[in-house]
């Protein structure tokens, strides 16, 4: 770092980029970054560029994301995201936890859509166990994951609105999200990080009266979504700030590893729920939302309409969910009902073994991918026959989506960079793990 000398008469502000891995490489040609020294004298030349550091703490609520930008006036020449501020070694922790405990760890990675994380992890474990789930378990999972998609996209609407200045959008988005979290609380017991989808099924059956709660939620959220549409979609200020901003082409998106709404905004209608169906998605009707222009406005619209599509799926779940077991009855994998523990020695032993040592997964490796609200989330799991994984890796969509900044931010204005990062909808918990 530079040495800063503060002289009593003059205040000196120095900015340097000498930070090792976070250093921006020097541009070719005329433009160069220089130290900004603010003294009493005249301003530096207008054609010099400036390195600006945004984050890791800033009001645009996308977690601890730091972006180093080189600016020429208002225009961004280069932008480099610096991540790692939320790294807590969750993958290393995953190697120390049993498979029974694994969902509690994985759920905290993408904390806006925790049930997606739990689902992909449980599916990977079940794949290695060659376990088949009863149909009610898959439908309950689908219901929960779609409710989670609704709450995650509502979070996006709220934060995206506020980032672009529609501050009341923040409150509206949170209000609808509250309804969704309340329903999730009645079903799973927690508002976030539920640890509800576990290898073998789900933790408990749906509570009595859930259908009314869920249908009421659908009506409330639908009304909210129509409100947002009315508030924003034709709003000239909103359109000025989002239409034509951060345009991404399909080739760029594919090359930079973007999936999910970012890829669908470029005109490429790829959704894993449709292309490689899992759970019961090939049994329900829903549309894959995609747009053509690849700008910020498109990504906002996609997520808005995806809320409605998820509500469509949720309504079908309410009507058609089959009766039956909510988890596999294999006592080597799922614990017995608590009442049985008093009656049966075997049940007691199974319970004990499961919660102390956990079940063993035969040696093997697998990669399972599902469509989270942010894109393709995958779980690469390597097992060695013990009760703890050798390697638990989550392919986090935001980690890859962030790289699409490289194609969208340079060339635009600084204020647009905020809009673009917001439209990527990164969740730093899964970027950093």
């Amino acid at each position, binding site marked *: 770092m530079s040495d800063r000398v503060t002289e009593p008469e003059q205040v000196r502000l120095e900015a340097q980029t000498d930070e090792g891995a976070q250093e921006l490489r020097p541009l070719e040609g005329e433009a160069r970054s220089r130290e900004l020294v603010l003294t009493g004298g005249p301003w530096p030349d207008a054609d010099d560029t400036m390195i600006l550091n945004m984050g890791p703490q800033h009001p645009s609520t996308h977690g601890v994301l730091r972006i180093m930008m080189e600016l020429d006036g208002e225009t961004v020449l280069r932008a480099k995201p610096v991540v790692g501020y939320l*790294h807590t*070694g969750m993958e290393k922790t995953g190697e120390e936890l049993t498979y029974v405990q694994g969902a509690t760890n994985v759920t905290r990675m993408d904390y806006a859509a925790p049930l997606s994380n739990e689902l992909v992890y449980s599916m990977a474990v079940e794949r290695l166990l060659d376990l088949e789930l009863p149909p009610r378990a898959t439908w309950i999972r689908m219901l929960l994951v779609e409710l989670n998609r609704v709450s995650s996209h509502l979070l996006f609407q709220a934060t995206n609105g506020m980032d672009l200045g529609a501050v009341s959008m923040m409150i509206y988005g949170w209000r609808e999200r509250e309804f969704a979290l309340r329903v999730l609380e009645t079903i799973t017991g927690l508002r976030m990080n539920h640890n509800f989808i576990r290898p073998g099924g789900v933790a408990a059956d749906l509570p009595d009266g859930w259908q009314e709660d869920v249908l009421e939620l659908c009506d409330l959220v639908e009304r909210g979504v129509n409100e947002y549409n009315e508030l924003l979609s034709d709003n000239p200020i909103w359109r000025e700030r989002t239409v034509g901003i951060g345009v991404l082409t399909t080739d760029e998106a*594919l*090359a930079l*590893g973007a999936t999910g709404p970012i890829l669908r905004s470029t005109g*490429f209608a790829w959704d894993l729920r449709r292309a490689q169906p899992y759970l019961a998605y090939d049994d329900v009707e829903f549309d894959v939302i995609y747009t053509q222009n690849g700008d910020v406005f498109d990504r906002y619209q996609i997520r808005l309409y995806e809320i409605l599509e998820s509500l469509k799926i949720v309504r079908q779940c309410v009507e058609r969910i089959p009766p039956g077991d909510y988890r596999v009855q294999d006592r080597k994998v799922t614990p017995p009902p608590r009442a049985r523990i008093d009656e049966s020695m075997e049940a007691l032993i199974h319970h004990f073994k499961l919660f102390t040592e956990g079940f063993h997964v035969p040696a093997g490796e697998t990669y399972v991918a599902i469509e989270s609200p942010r894109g393709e989330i995958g779980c690469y799991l390597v097992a060695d026959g013990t009760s703890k994984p050798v390697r638990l890796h989550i392919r986090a969509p935001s980690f890859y989506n962030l790289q699409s900044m490289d194609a969208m931010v340079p060339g635009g204005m600084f204020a647009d960079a905020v809009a673009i990062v917001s439209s990527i909808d990164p969740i730093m918990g899964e970027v950093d793990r």
Partner: protein
Amino acid sequence: MADSADEPREDVHEPGPPPPPDDEVAAAVLAGFPGACFVDSHGQSVVYVGRAQWRDVTAFLRDEQRFTQCVDLTAVDHLVDVERAVPPGVAPERYEVVANFLSYPRNRRLRVICEVPAGEPEVTSIADLYPSLAFAEREVYDLFGIDFTGHRDIARILMPDDWIGHPLRKDDAPARVPVTFKEDPGPR
């Protein structure tokens, strides 16, 4: 490392069967790159290649087999495995670099695994073929210490710049103070 390579085990994947008839991609890889091994891992196609072929196989998949994206690149440290499922024909090493490819037009996935020895932890970078792997290779370098030769910006990404060690290695213990017990003072 466990002597998993020495005796055949029942729980290891089937010894190198030919790829299933509908997996022409794996068949093409095996045909084009001698020494590669195919395994069907719980319904998924996995091909093991050598480090020397890593980049060529990737280019082949991208250019001729239309694998549009490499959705994930990661590594595994097999230092303390109790059992290890490695197909015969593959010499197991301490590290494995694993890449998952996805072809959108063909709607299929392929996993490619390459063994990396502990003494020479480096692999050729494929981040110029698939720009999405720029971050992923940095993460593997950061957490495992596997160097990706040819990566234009290899540097730590998740850990602080001045961190020493590679956390996801099995012998990189987090800073743990061993618990010491004083003599039991006896019943109170």
